[in-house]
């Protein structure tokens, strides 16, 4: 049996899956202590815990810690050299700039000064800092400086992360913030894992724990200890993976996860969710964390409905539950209640709430109810148009891609979340497309967590002129053998990904894709001096075989 738990801001959902059947589901209100919520929801499932083979958690822990700045002082040691002044990106006084410069090919121009590093580390230590992030510009082309700094300070700090281990992608400001957040949430993740393990053990669950990441994949808690930042925004990813599990085909599917306050929009192409190319943002800052491409729009079942300047407005905020459920303000759910498309709660309270709006607008209650639902669906549809436009506007850098664009056009819509069933006919009509609400859509998030495969991405660079092979994520920095081709690099990377499953927190069910492959002749004067090859490999986000082979 498999257990999936999604700890959201409002609710904590759990599902228990045996083979490819959902055997139990449970929902509790998320409390202040997340561990209590986990214990509570697991007890609510009422299943035989001893037979659990896999437990996956999707939590808002890191996200909230970052957004609410609930972490202890974290130091940063940064080297950059010429370019944009790195101090523009410093978030606190604990960011320190030191000497050192490496160029885009990874050639050292300015060395790191040992005395300077030690002085900075000394001051951080005096200030009581326990965690330090180390970042140098172009470290993914040459991690030597980061490693030199690391070896000088590692004995003095409990938590240390290095920029090149976060991601092999070029982007110094994002790397700074990613490394900072990662280091800052390390102690929080460590404490959390310890208490979750204890709580689950008390319930008789002893299996290893996996965490859901923003890319819709999972990793073992051993890797989550090292890279906790990857768990940010795993909530929306959980729902998307639920949609992947519940889909019946491999069409291009627009996924709408309609909640109380917001609707999260995502897209599946051939059954695979689309990723954000550069990395996702958290707490208003851009990071290198690989995440699903999603858009959140302020229109949900509980959106506040009101009249402003004689016009009907829906959202973007929520002012409590629907009137039908004891709230004080009208919501789209009340409109659906009046229209007979929602059966729960007090009909009279919904009628009263909608009638208030109707008086203000001088219109019939039924018409106003229809207008509310239309307005909400219209808001979602406009957001979807923008979202698909953005998916299709990614710049391309080759003539081939320019002439043969992969235009994404949704063929159907899958709606999940609380009000999915109630809104289905309206969405179908507005979009003029097939619209599916799968069974169990209300626990799609927990199901997605339960069933998500392990994922990782690695970046490889081979420079035959400098005779160098690099893979920052795996900390590989080695000399290249004499002759080397792009295919050699791809097979080296494939082997490296398979050999490092424990380090990356992977299980052996992975499917490897070549995400990018480029090879350039390097020329000096008029003769070729070598090749510059770049490869990105991933283990693809997807659903474990147990479920998808049904």
């Amino acid at each position, binding site marked *: 049996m498999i257990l999936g738990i999604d700890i959201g801001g409002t609710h904590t959902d759990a599902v228990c899956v045996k083979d490819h059947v959902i055997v139990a589901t449970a929902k509790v209100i998320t409390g202040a202590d997340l561990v209590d919520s986990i214990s509570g929801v697991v007890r609510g499932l009422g299943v035989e815990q001893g037979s659990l083979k896999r437990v996956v958690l999707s939590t808002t822990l890191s996200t909230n810690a970052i957004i609410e700045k609930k972490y202890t002082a974290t130091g940063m040691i940064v080297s950059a*050299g*010429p*370019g*944009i*002044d790195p101090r*523009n*990106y410093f978030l606190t006084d604990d960011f320190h700039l030191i000497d050192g*410069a490496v*160029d*885009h*090919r990874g050639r050292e*121009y*300015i060395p790191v000064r040992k005395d300077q590093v030690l002085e900075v580390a000394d001051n951080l230590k005096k200030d009581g800092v326990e965690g330090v992030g180390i970042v140098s*510009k*172009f470290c993914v*082309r040459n991690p030597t400086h980061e490693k030199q700094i690391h070896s000088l300070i590692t004995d003095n700090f409990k938590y240390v992360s290095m920029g090149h281990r976060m991601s092999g*992608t*070029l*982007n*110094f*400001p*994002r790397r700074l913030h990613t490394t900072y957040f990662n280091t800052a949430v390390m102690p929080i993740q460590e404490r959390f894992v310890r208490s979750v393990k204890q709580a689950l053990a008390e319930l008789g669950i002893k299996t290893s724990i996996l965490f859901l990441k923003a890319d819709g994949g999972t990793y073992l808690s051993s890797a989550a200890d090292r890279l906790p930042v990857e768990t940010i925004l795993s909530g929306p990813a959980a729902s998307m993976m639920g949609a992947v599990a519940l889909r019946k085909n491999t069409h291009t599917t627009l996924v709408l996860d309609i909640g109380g306050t917001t609707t999260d929009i995502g897209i599946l192409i051939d059954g695979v969710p689309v990723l954000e190319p*550069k990395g996702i943002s958290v707490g208003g800052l*851009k990071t290198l964390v690989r995440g699903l491409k999603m858009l959140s729009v302020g229109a949900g079942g509980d959106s506040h409905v009101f009249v402003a300047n004689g016009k009907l407005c829906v959202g973007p905020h929520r002012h409590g539950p629907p009137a039908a459920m004891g709230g004080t303000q009208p919501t789209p759910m009340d409109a659906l209640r009046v229209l007979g498309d929602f059966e729960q709660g007090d009909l009279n309270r919904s009628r009263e709430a909608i009638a208030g709006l109707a008086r203000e607008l001088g219109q019939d209650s039924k018409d106003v109810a229809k207008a509310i639902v239309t307005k909400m669906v219209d808001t979602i549809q406009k957001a979807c148009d923008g979202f698909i436009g953005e998916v299709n*506007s*990614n*710049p*391309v*850098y*080759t*003539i*081939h891609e*320019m*002439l043969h664009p992969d235009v994404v056009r949704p063929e159907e819509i899958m709606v999940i979340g609380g009000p999915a069933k109630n809104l289905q006919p309206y969405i179908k009509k507005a979009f003029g497309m097939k619209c599916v609400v799968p069974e169990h859509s209300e626990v799609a998030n927990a199901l997605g967590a339960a069933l998500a495969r392990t994922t990782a991405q690695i970046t490889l660079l081979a420079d035959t002129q400098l005779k160098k092979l690099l893979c920052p994520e795996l900390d590989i920095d080695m000399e290249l053998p004499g002759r080397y081709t792009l295919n050699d690099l791809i097979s080296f990377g494939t082997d490296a990904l398979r050999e490092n499953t424990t380090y990356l927190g992977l299980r052996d069910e992975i499917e490897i894709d070549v995400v990018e492959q*480029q090879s*350039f*002749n*390097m*020329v000096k*004067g*008029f*003769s*070729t001096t070598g090749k*510059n090859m770049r490869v990105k490999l991933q283990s693809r986000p997807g659903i474990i075989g147990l479920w998808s082979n049904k």
Partner: protein
Amino acid sequence: MIQAKRQTGLIFFPAYDWEITPTHPERQERLLYTQDQVLEEGLLDIEGIHEFKAGLASDEDVNRVHFCVPDVTSRITHSHSISAGGCIEAARLVMEGNVERAFALVRPPGHHAMRVVHGARGFCNINIEAVMVEWVRKNYSHIKKIAIVDTDCHHGDGSQDIFWHDPNVLYISIHQDGRTLYPGTGFPDEFGGPGALGMTVNVPLPPRTSDRGFLYAIENLILPILDEFKPDLVINSAGQDNHYSDPITHMAFTAGGYARLNELLAPDICVLEGGYSIESALPYINTGIILALAGVDYSYVREPDLDPDQIREDPKALDYIEELCDALLDTWRRRDEVVSSPKEFAERQRSIYYDTDGISETQHETLRFCPDCPGVFKIDTQASSGYRVLCVHIPRGACDACRQQGHDWFDSANGRFYAAYLQDMDNDGYQINIL
């Protein structure tokens, strides 16, 4: 966090699958390290800097500028349509107000492509700025006066040729002296056609000119001319081969200098031209230009190997540049005093060599020098590749007499020619008559 002062659009099209030959300077690798630098610096994440997709220029867009012999399809590849299309997109973004400034960081380049195209010259097949300029004038009639400031190290003989007779396009080229570098033209006495005197300005600088020399010319010659011309649109043909590390030129300009140049010039649109120091110069120059366009501090952008003392100009060279600029400004201000051709028809005979394709061309151009309009002209051209054709250009705002003359020339072309071509700018018309 960094906030751009001006909304700035970047069209990046490195054409990673196109090259002239694998070891040619114009090769797949050319913008690779620039992209690395732009990505690592996080330039595209700066609030106010946006990346946009390039587009494709159509045959009509090309025919608005060029006479491609025998036709567009034979003379260009998709890479050229996208490079010109990238410029058009940059212009569209600025014209539609999506951004204040735009930079088309595209290849292949275009400023050596002249009005008649028998093949490729100086790595260029079609003139991407000219295609953009004509697209702007066709679609936005309120844009009357355009200035192109060409800061490539090579004289932009193609752009000069295309706008030679155009009184509404000011073409200023600042480049390494033609006595020491390809294409060997661009001297102060090349000053515009008889109906457009002063609308071409050439500033040949001595080899090894560095930041002080370039910026002197910008501040004391080019900016005063622009102030008086009052263009509706300023374009920088942003070649980057004046850099001290460029392998095929002999200047000593720096990335910081290029950034300052763009800050001073404040162009609406920049278009990449040449620049072949792809590892040591382009990454830093392009970073500097993007920051300068967006109004973001660029003072820490510099080449890792920069040694300003090594590349400082000889004081004598600076004296020479100052005298040259002062003289040019004086001549420009007195451009109306220059006596124009008194005859009805002004003619010129030229030989043009297409170095990239090894083609020789001879041209005989006839301009109807007209008091009422820019004047119609025809070009009788024969290339060693075999084609002899007649090209007729009826300019924007042509008077009835010039318009009639153009049609007469086009209609009377006989079997000596493979074909006759007619560009009618006011009607956005292009005709080919195969003879």
